[in-house]
């Protein structure tokens, strides 16, 4: 404890450096995502792939109604027509919403036990065995993408032999624990471990998250933003979207990239590309 206190005091100026100044982090990786809403068809493939990959429990109708659902990846659906239109003529607006892995995550500082913190990969980690279930993080999350285990779902969600499907690479969370999208950290770990065993860097496209893998239209792109060659980094650059800022100042404001609620200064790691509609009416 004393060494870390000293560490804290020695590096005080670093800790005090804010997000506006670029933060102090020396990131190893910066996992990021791009969701192209021109391509997203709202089909749920990503969401179900997430259930399969991440041991998400099915809670049933009653608990769903109470807001106890555990879908880390949800598809929001909006109708954008003006109310005087007779029909939803421009179709639905689908929005895949998952943890945005904020660079300055509002959930982190409110956790009384540091169960949620920032990793050197730029991920917003949730440590289940540390979590005491205060739910402050969820209250502070502007995206409402944190899900709390109000119950122990083990027996109800995975009656035998359904439990044989559970992914052994990550825990099954029990009652009283908060959880959320991890950008499939178990896959990240496998890829990083593999790269390390072979004394090389993780290659772009070597692995991807379950949602991006499943997406039939490739609307979701995942990768390391620090790897200039990665598809993700190139898309962020192409759409002139900056990290850290609260308002994008693009050379070409017509480019579609934007970050949801970035004005809250949370620095989300997910860039969305605006939905496109032909004006044919």
């Amino acid at each position: 404890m004393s060494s870390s206190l000293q560490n804290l005091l020695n590096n005080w100026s670093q800790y005090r450096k804010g997000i506006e100044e670029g933060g102090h982090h020396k990131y190893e990786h910066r996992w990021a995502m791009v969701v192209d809403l021109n391509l997203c068809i709202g089909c749920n493939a990503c969401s179900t792939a997430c259930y399969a990959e991440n041991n998400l429990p099915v809670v049933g109708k009653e608990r769903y109604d109470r807001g106890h659902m555990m879908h880390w990846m949800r598809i929001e659906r909006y109708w954008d027509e003006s109310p005087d239109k007779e029909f939803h003529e421009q179709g639905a607006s689908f929005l895949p919403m998952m943890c945005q892995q904020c660079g300055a995550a509002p959930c982190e500082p409110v956790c009384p036990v540091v169960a949620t913190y920032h990793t050197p990969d730029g991920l917003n980690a949730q440590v289940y065995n540390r979590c005491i279930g205060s739910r402050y993080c969820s209250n502070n999350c502007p995206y409402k993408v944190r899900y709390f285990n109000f119950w122990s779902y083990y027996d109800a969600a995975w009656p035998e032999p359904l439990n044989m499907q559970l992914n052994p690479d990550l825990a099954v969370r029990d009652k009283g624990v908060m959880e959320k999208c991890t950008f499939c950290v178990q896959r990240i770990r496998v890829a990083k471990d593999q790269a390390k065993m072979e004394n090389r860097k993780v290659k772009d496209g070597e692995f991807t998250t379950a949602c991006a893998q499943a997406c039939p239209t490739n609307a979701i792109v995942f990768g390391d933003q620090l790897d200039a060659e990665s598809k993700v980094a190139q898309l962020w650059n192409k759409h002139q979207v900056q990290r850290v800022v609260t308002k994008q100042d693009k050379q070409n404001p017509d480019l579609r990239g934007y970050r949801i609620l970035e004005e809250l200064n949370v620095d989300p790691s997910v860039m969305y590309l605006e939905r496109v509609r032909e004006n044919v009416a």
Partner: protein
Amino acid sequence: MKSMWKGVRSRRGWLLGGGFVVFALMGLTVWAAATGEAPQSKPIVPPQGSYEGVAVEQPIEFPHDVHTKVNKINCLYCHTYGRRSKVAGIPPTSKCMGCHRVIATDKPRIKQLTEYWEKKQPVPWKKVHDVPDFVHFTHEKHLKRFIFDNEENVQNLSVDTVAPVCAYCHGDLREMTVAQKVKPMTMGWCVACHQANDGPGDCWKCHK
């Protein structure tokens, strides 16, 4: 840990109570060591501490000492998955039979083994070392760090090179028949070793 503070201060100032700081500093002890690659030249500090595990009764009383101390068989010969996977694994029965088709076939324990083999049943070994399911220990990387990165001739490792490394966590199997848990295997114990040897301090390295 550092990241925890990033952006917080500038947006909110010091709004947090004392309790938080205390907890946070506890987190810091984990984090402080977690910077970058471990310099390979630094001498390894084996984890300290001991534990008195229960004696586990196995279906066959497997003599680790006979295999390692007397016959000098390298641990990784049988627990071969350890180099390539997070689990070191129980050797497949075919591996046992590779030798015991001809060696010591008259011994009662080998007869027991042969019986399982002929019935095509796996031996129902009992687990001796276990960690909770939210802990994802990986043998592969520990073996790389503590054996393969330090040895010139990895093709010809002797049991006396390997066994002391395995002993960090499992005790010296050269002195045991059936394995018994002799190390605490608690988080504090893991973390102490990570700090002493510049191991990673990111919670998500082990917990997910």
